[in-house]
């Protein structure tokens, strides 16, 4: 055993092969090692290149050395050909080392793959079980698509052939499983599937174990096809569980009969609901009870292996019980069993018990039973020495939390947070924030909790968390005064976290007036308190505080001179940071020129935020999800102003911050005049490159069309577009007829957006009963749920002649969608009812956030998204002149980042970004390959979600 104290050097004497590389003297310098290895590599290279043909033994020797050098972390760029040659040797040992080299060193897109496949083909056909085994191993280990193409038809035949040896069958089953995992589309289902199911009855337990793994994976994707496996699995399991352990000879492991097979069978059963056949169901229940009973028996051995194997089966049985979630009796027994494990002396068992209990907590039958263990779990949080276990305890507390114990659990989590490991603090912060919000009966408690969070772990309180507390305070009148008072008190602390300054600044700016009556928190005191923190804060916080100051000017006219003095100071007006300088200049100006009425309008109290699912929850889900999304996040590009995610003073933005897109339309000036730049093909890139895109014109209600035939207005070919024109831009004229012009300005950020719709009355007569309503349209796939939430307020029902009204639509993308919403407008004009319906250009790509990445990252991710469902490709003819600059502008307008110098072919365009929806984030890669000669494009989209790839490809294809 490794623990043995035998000096190992003795053995080295018999094996000189690797001696030059690893003489047993430790502590040699890195340089010396590299020098030695380079020398050895040169030697091997010269041997391979030399005139003298190497004998099999030398070839093996050198290949083995190369493997070792690779293990030490050095690149091996030769020897592949020699290894491939070894494959076709007739000597077993040579073949074996050849295969080993290939499965360790050859990656899937090597050019040698054809030669390798050839050798494999010969070995599979050799009928020599040893050679077949080697070949199957190699396929499974490399598992590339090319190999799947070559062998996905052959391997199933080997698997079910009557004369195949057990060991080969075992390898064939796993080999097929590997191919199915990498390329499910290439593995043909057929009559072999029913024969595979019957392998569950095979004599050889190794074959059964391998087959169970295979069937489990296949059944997850094709449950119907493998339904018969349920009863077979139950009877097999029953035979194992009830047998005396001696029946299974070698497959008994430390007195536990066939533990691995039992685990696999229990996993397979988790692909299905509880069996319908009462006999099968009874038998399964009996098995599960027996397993639970055995857990109570005294151990047959003191060895840890015995208890591990026994408990592996037990935990899997509990998983199945939780999965079925139908037998209250079993659920409660499972819960009690896990409760015992919570106090077991084995750390591994405590860990697994906490983990399993998390899922048990969500079952209605056992939720209450789980809750009884709260003290044990809290104790675990305090006393466990292992951070992995403490993390599970946090998870379980989160899962078992409900209204009855929320206060206790939040308090415990908060106190744990003070000493928690740095690696899990952010997650705990999110969990506390969510629980506090979800189970808040008393919003004062909620505000206290969040402020405590900031106090204890301010660095780990993300934007989402403090945005959320502000949203809630703004939406709930009853807590505003308390919040103002509490932040005011919290800010008294000599050193407080910057996040607290942000929350405090924002809340006092909005609701400081509620506590201003108390002389201890008079306006000037509030201002001085905030301003005392100002100089220690970062630029964004200072920017926020400047906004607070201008709000103070509005709320408390008496502090106006003081604030003007501050704004006038050189450190503001001449600040090196352009944002701060601009705010100071604009706010100062606003405070001097605007009358109190205008000031009050501009700085009106924030309207309530639309109710939506907490962004914190989304963040937590994201954190727990695949990490690829998270690191894409970091490289987000700054884009436009903060729309409605953050508590920036949005109402003031029109006057105080420059709009990123100046009013293109001049709608504000003269709505009656025919506006919008004339269509010119060589003109502005984003303005009018799609001038003739009538393809996806919006369906107009017949009423308006009949009254105002389009032909009458030949000067405005862009009438009623609303389709693909807006895919790559956010502003423009959406619709125009003789009566009405509709203009749009929109901003999107992550999964949220805000669209300003301007309705201009082109006539000199009033519109009456003017009611525009945006409605999401449901595709067939969304009968039950909405993909898009639109929120808006009704506009003034009367629109004077020549006037313009504005409507704001808040948009939230819940999940990816294809159908754009529709804007229905009804109004009365000169005695007749008018009806207009226009498609609103809210398309999936609006929720793109661009991502910059290096060439290497790009192609690595590109390769990771290689499943056929993830890729959508379209080859199409160019509808517009193929101009590089215009194409680039379109890709950027589409929302993705345009990655320069990533594609080896400079003529190609590649882009990357993330589609944000409330429920998920989808990383997207795109590549556009123009072919000038043929006037064609090939567009390839790869995302982790099929529907997203599909939709983005459709949208972008229309643009060229």
């Amino acid at each position, binding site marked *: *055993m*490794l*623990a*043995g104290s*035998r000096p*190992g050097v003795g*053995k*080295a004497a018999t094996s*000189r*092969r*690797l001696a030059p590389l690893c003489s047993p003297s430790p502590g040699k310098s890195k340089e010396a090692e590299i020098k030695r290895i380079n020398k050895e590599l040169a030697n091997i290279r010269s041997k391979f290149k030399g005139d003298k043909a190497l004998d*099999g*033994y030398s070839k093996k020797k050198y290949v*083995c050395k190369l493997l*070792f050098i*690779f*293990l030490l*972390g050095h690149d091996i760029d030769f020897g592949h050909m020699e290894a491939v040659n070894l494959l076709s040797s007739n*000597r*077993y*040992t040579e073949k*074996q080392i050849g295969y*080993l080299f290939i499965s*360790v060193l050859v*990656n*899937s897109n090597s050019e040698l793959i054809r030669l390798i496949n050839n050798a494999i083909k010969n070995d599979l056909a050799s009928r020599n079980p040893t050679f077949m085994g080697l070949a*199957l191993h190699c*396929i*499974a*280990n490399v598992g590339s698509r090319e190999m799947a193409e070559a062998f996905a038809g052959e391997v199933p035949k080997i698997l079910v052939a009557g004369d195949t040896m057990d060991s080969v069958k075992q*390898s064939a089953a*796993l*080999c097929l*499983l*590997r191919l199915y995992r990498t390329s499910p589309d290439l593995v043909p289902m057929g009559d072999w599937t029913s024969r595979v199911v019957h392998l569950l009855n095979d004599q050889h*337990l*190794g074959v059964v*174990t391998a087959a169970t793994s295979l069937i*489990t994976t296949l059944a997850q994707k094709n449950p119907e096809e493998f339904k018969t496996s349920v009863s077979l699995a139950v009877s097999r399991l029953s035979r194992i569980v009830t047998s005396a352990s001696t029946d299974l000879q070698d497959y008994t*492991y430390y007195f536990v009969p066939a*533990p*691995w097979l039992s685990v696999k069978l229990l*996993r397979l059963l988790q692909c299905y609901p509880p069996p319908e056949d009462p006999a099968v169901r009874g038998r399964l229940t009996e098995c599960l009870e027996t397993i639970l009973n055995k857990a109570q028996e005294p151990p047959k051995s003191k060895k840890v*292996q015995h208890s*591990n194997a026994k408990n*592996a089966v037990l*935990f899997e049985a509990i998983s199945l019980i939780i999965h079925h979630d139908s037998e209250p009796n079993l659920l409660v027994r499972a819960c009690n069993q896990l409760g015992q494990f919570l106090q077991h002396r084995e*750390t*591994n068992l*405590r*860990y*697994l018990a906490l983990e399993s209990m998390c899922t048990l907590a969500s079952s209605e039958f056992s939720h209450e039973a789980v809750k009884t263990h709260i003290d044990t779990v809290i104790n675990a949080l305090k006393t466990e*020495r*292992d951070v*992995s*276990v403490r*993390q599970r305890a946090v998870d379980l507390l989160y899962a078992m939390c409900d209204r009855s114990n929320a206060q206790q659990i939040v308090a415990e989590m908060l106190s744990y947070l003070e000493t928690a490991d740095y690696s899990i603090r952010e997650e705990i912060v999110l969990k506390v924030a969510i629980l506090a919000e979800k189970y808040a009966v008393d919003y004062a408690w909620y505000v206290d909790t969040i402020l405590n969070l900031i106090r204890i772990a301010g660095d780990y309180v993300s934007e989402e968390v403090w945005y959320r507390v502000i949203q809630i305070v703004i939406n709930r009148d009853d807590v505003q005064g308390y919040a103002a008072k509490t932040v005011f008190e919290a800010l008294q602390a000599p050193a407080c976290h910057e996040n607290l300054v942000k929350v405090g600044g924002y809340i006092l700016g909005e609701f400081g007036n509620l506590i201003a009556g108390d002389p201890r928190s008079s306006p000037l005191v509030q201002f001085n308190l905030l301003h005392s923190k100002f100089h220690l804060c970062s630029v964004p916080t200072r920017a926020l505080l400047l906004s607070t100051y201008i709000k103070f000017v509005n709320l408390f006219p008496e502090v106006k001179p003081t604030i003007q003095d501050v704004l006038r100071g050189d450190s503001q007006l001449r600040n090196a940071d352009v944002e701060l300088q601009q705010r100071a200049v604009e706010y100062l100006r606003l405070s001097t020129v605007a009358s109190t009425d205008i000031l009050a309008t501009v700085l009106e109290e924030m309207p309530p935020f639309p109710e939506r699912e907490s962004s914190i929850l989304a963040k937590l889900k994201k954190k*727990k999800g*695949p*990490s690829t999304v998270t690191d894409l996040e970091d490289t987000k590009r700054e884009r436009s102003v903060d729309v409605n995610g953050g508590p920036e003073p949005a109402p003031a933005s029109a006057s105080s911050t420059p709009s990123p897109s100046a009013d293109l339309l001049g709608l504000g000036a003269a709505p009656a005049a025919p506006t919008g730049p004339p269509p010119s093909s060589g003109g502005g890139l984003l303005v009018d490159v799609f001038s003739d895109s009538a393809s996806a014109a919006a369906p107009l209600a017949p009423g308006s069309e009949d009254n105002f035939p389009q032909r009458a207005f030949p000067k405005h070919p862009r009438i009623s577009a609303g389709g693909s024109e807006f895919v790559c831009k956010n502003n423009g004229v959406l619709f125009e007829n003789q009566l009405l012009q509709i203009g749009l300005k929109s901003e999107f950020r992550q999964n949220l957006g805000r669209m300003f719709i301007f309705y201009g009355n082109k006539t000199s007569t009033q519109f009456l009963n003017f009611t525009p309503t945006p409605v999401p349209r449901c595709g067939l796939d969304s009968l039950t749920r909405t993909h898009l939430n639109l929120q808006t307020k009704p506009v003034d029902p009367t629109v004077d002649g020549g006037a313009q009204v504005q409507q704001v639509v808040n948009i939230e993308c819940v999940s990816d969608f294809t159908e754009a919403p529709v804007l229905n407008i009804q109004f009365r004009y000169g005695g007749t009812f008018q009806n207009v319906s226009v498609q609103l250009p809210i398309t999936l790509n609006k929720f793109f956030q661009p991502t910059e990445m290096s060439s290497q990252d790009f192609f690595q991710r590109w390769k990771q998204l290689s499943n056929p469902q993830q890729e959508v490709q379209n080859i199409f003819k160019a509808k517009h002149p193929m101009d590089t600059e215009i194409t680039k502008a379109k890709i950027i307008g589409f929302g993705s980042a345009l990655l320069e110098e990533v594609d080896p072919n400079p003529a190609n365009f590649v882009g990357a970004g993330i589609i944000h929806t409330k429920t998920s984030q989808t990383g997207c890669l795109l590549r556009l390959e123009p072919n000038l000669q043929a006037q064609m494009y090939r567009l390839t989209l790869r995302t982790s979600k099929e529907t997203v790839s599909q939709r983005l490809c459709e949208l972008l294809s229309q643009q060229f």
Partner: protein
Amino acid sequence: MIQAILVFNNHGKPRLVRFYQHFPEEIQQQIVRETFHLVLKRDDNICNFLEGGSLIGGSDYKLIYRHYATLYFVFCVDSSESELGILDLIQVFVETLDKCFENVCELDLIFHMDKVHYILQEVVMGGMVLETNMNEIVAQIEAQNRLEKSEGGALG
């Protein structure tokens, strides 16, 4: 599925590295280093599971490891594997090595790297558990040895 099997010594020197998903060489080395640092700072008697490092797939993957004298055996697995099952599998692998090398030690892994790979291949194939019965595994290895002898070209 088993994503990777890493064996390294107490100083982080890799002694057996097997990936069942393709990573570029430098990433492989980084994963070994990252994993080493993750397990190194853990006491011997705390739990044998931890969440995977950032390189190998984050929280969807678990590292399941055992520490024997001078060597760490780490299996990186996804959620389709039973934690305790894998823990026992490591034990089976080590016990098998012990049988085949008669009291195995770290140097055996260096000087008989090919053999170690062959033994591992009998236990895990393409990231999936192939055989768990030690006698069966040893029988396969012995059959290989006989073949080798009959060809008269044993390597070492």
